[in-house]
């Protein structure tokens, strides 16, 4: 279990070349701004507070001095702004190039969770998961972004800037993680009731471990041996659970809500809102509305025994 505080979640602590170049751009702009701020405010305060000699400069001289000063200050402003412009466009064009040979991932926004797909070479190879994106360190990835409902925005600050998910369009964002780690991201476009609780994790791991993870995700769920868990499976596929959730290898095949085939491999539930522990899973299944008011997941009317059985079954989904 990875604790959230460890997850990188800052544009100023970059873990990839895209975020790093923006971090450097910020350093440059911040430094320049401080210098200019000190100069302008310094001149302002000095102009306001300076001791005024009683004889003073004659009006004609004042006007020509003021004119010179304003022209110089304006010229410097234009020069600094022009440097900013050149820097902005050069950094921007470097970042907007789409890398070749990138791993392709599809992310679809839903109110209020993220569906993640890894397309496979063959139909059976496709992997569907939710709210957690695994990717190989040191290799570029291109994420295709779609939305099922309203506009969302994909943003893992330690890795890259935002890209909107717009219904009726496909947008893409390409980036790379060059340090292994878990990075947090959160929806950045207001998308309704639970916009605040629509987070995700990006898990960047060495290529071999990523490959192994992807292979495991292709497995279908096995029918549990344990009787309680087996009862849970029966409850799951025969009640409202199956109307929204899919578990590969069972009759439950709906993709309205997150795919649960490998639920236990994920760090969080409820879109980065809760740690994926037994207690929180129980609380979430029993009464999601008190944790995330307005979520599309209805409160369950399972009996206590059925609830325990479903929870036991969910724990087998590794």
């Amino acid at each position, binding site marked *: 279990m990875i*604790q*959230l*505080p460890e997850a990188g*979640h*800052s*544009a100023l602590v970059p873990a990839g070349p895209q975020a790093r*170049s*923006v971090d450097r751009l*910020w350093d440059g*702009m911040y430094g320049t*701004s401080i210098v*200019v*701020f000190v100069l*302008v405010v310094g001149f*302002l*305060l000095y*102009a*306001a507070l*300076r001791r*005024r000699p009683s004889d003073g400069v004659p009006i004609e001289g004042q*006007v020509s001095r*003021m*004119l010179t*000063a*304003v022209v110089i*200050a*304006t010229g410097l*402003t*234009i020069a600094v*702004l022009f440097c*900013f412009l050149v820097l*902005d466009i050069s*950094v921007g064009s470097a*970042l907007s190039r789409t890398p070749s040979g990138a791993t392709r991932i599809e992310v679809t926004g839903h109110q209020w969770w993220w569906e993640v797909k890894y397309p496979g070479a063959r139909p059976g190879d496709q992997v569907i998961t939710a709210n957690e994106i695994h990717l190989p360190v040191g290799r570029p990835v291109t994420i295709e972004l779609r939305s099922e409902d*309203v*506009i969302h*925005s994909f*943003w893992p*600050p330690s890795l890259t*800037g*935002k*890209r909107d998910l*717009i*219904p*009726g*369009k496909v*947008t*893409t964002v390409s980036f790379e993680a060059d340090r292994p780690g878990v990075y947090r*991201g*959160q929806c*950045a*476009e*207001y998308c309704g*009731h*639970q*916009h*605040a*609780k629509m987070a995700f994790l990006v898990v960047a791991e060495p290529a071999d471990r990523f490959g192994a993870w992807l292979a495991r995700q292709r497995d279908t769920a096995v029918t549990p041996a344990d009787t309680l868990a087996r009862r849970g499976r029966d409850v799951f596929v025969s009640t409202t659970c199956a109307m929204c959730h899919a578990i590969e290898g069972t009759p439950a095949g709906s993709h309205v809500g997150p795919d649960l085939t490998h639920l236990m491999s994920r760090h969080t539930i409820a879109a980065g*809102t809760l740690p994926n522990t037994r207690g929180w899973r129980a609380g979430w299944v029993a009464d999601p509305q008190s944790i995330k*008011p307005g979520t599309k997941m209805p409160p369950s009317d399972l009996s206590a025994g059925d609830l325990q059985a479903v929870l036991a079954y969910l724990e087998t989904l590794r």
Partner: protein
Amino acid sequence: MPGDALAGRLTPAEHDAVRRLDQTWRQEPGFRGWLRSVDHKPIALRFLVTAFVFFLLGGLEAATMRAQLSRPENTLVGPDLYNQIFTMHGTTMMFLFAVPVMTAMGLYFVPLMIGTRNVAFPKLNAYGYWVYLFGGLFLYVSFFLNTGPDTGWFSYVPLAGPEFSPGKRVDVWAQTVTFTEIASLVGAVELIVTIFKNRAPGMTLNRMPLFVWAMLVHAFMILFAMPWIATASQMLAMDRLVATHYFNPAEGGDALLWQHLFWFFGHPEVYIIFVPALGFVSSMVSTFTRRPVFGYPAMVFSMVATAFLGFGLWVHHMFATGLPALSESFFTGSSIMIAIPSGVQIFCWIATIWYGRPRFTVPFLFVLGFVVLFIIGGFTGVMVASVPFDLQVHDTYFVVAHFHYVLIGGAVTPLLGAVYYWFPKITGRMMSERLGRWQFWLFFVGMNVTFFPMHWLGFRGMPRRVYTYLAETGWGGLNLTASAGAALIAISVVLFLINVVRSLRAGAPAGPDPWGGDTLEWATSSPPPPYSFAFLPVVGSREPLWEPGGMTVATGLRTDVREVLVTTLLDAAPDSTHRHPQPTIWPFVAAVGTAVTFITLIFTPWGVVIGFPMLFAAFTGWAWPRGDDHREQLMVDHAS
């Protein structure tokens, strides 16, 4: 007291003239008179007071949000209420406070500064106020009935469309916007025509005070920006009410179309709010340094340039939508360029202060505070013009910090200074300098404590418009700091209110010109009489009150009917006279009809059918020839 500042040295004949003016321009007493008034001063004052009431309501909403966010996973307000509150805050501050308060300052002071007796179309002016008031009331009544809009002040589709926002909340937003657009457009037309056609004789365009230029630019920007949001909000209303599909991608509509239309209005909106503040600052700088602002042509040109460039940056709100990189570069260029005219104006003010003799009154403190805060907002503005940088900070608390520095620092700070500066003119009494200093420093410190940490919250991943956040994010400390700053701002606003109320009752009498200002509003008594000037000033320079020879006045306007002088556009040469209306109820009736139409339309398209006869009747009454006017006209003909 009859007449104005000149009253002491009048001949008996002039005394008679002033007495007749008092009679002709008399305000009707009581509630009936209040409803029927067509004088720009009481109407603009109502506008100002109403806008400040909305400012307080928007402030209460902000305070609630800061309380909710002061610690992680706080449960003071839930998501449903929080989403309404932040939408109400944005909608209130942008549509019901910032734009109207600036227009209202113009409606009060432009006629005084250009030496005329009223705005060009007094009935229309009254209508504008009532429409604005009804729009604001409608929004707040809806909010208290739990039907407050909850899709943000920008109401992006498809979230604000019929599928994802059923119910009436978004309709309330769209119609409120329609109300305020009408009021803004009315204000803009008033300002433009008044400035172009009613200036005092001799006040050529290049002798107009910078304040008046700022208001002219403000009005023209409204004229070009507001129709876009009017169109867009009506398209949204039609998508929702009669199932058109302008913004529905499933039926060939486009979600991004809304964003283009909205921001083509929304970005100029920022400058619509900001440019009048430049006018306030120029007025205060020149009065409190006792010298004209340096570089008059550069100042005027900068404001006009800001207005033009302001229409060319809307796409920088849409960098994250994935538009082509080349087009984004153009908007980066224009967004950076707009810093130049702002810079020029700041340099000109500093130069003026440098060779002036500054007096550190409360308004002047606010001017200094404005420059400091606005520069910070300006820097972050240049930063977010950069596409790669913007993609990191867009829709985060960094941007919240940025535009609060621009709007509070760049517009509210000068506005508060302007209230201290012009309060004596409006009420005849001075505000307390001691309380004012306390207020300024609390405000200045509170502003920075609230908004500066937000830059870092943005970098650390905190998006805007979230009703709560997890403790694990580590955002608690900075949020608590910001909330503490908000408390300082709240105390400062309370001090301001105390100062206003106390000064109204017991402030020192101001006299016509307490600060030694250079513009014409200081040439009349405080508060000005309903006809503003007993004798119309004639202007020979940019600083008529600082002319060594004193003021000259024009005579010849009739005193027995409400008559104003119309002058030519460029040179302000006397051209003709214009008869102004008596108090009338019809603007109020027309506004009621407008409100009934708009509000009924939310529930049924039959609103048009219901509203049309009401409006037809109201505007017929409005335009009906008055018997009195008619008779007076005949008398004139007979006499001549």
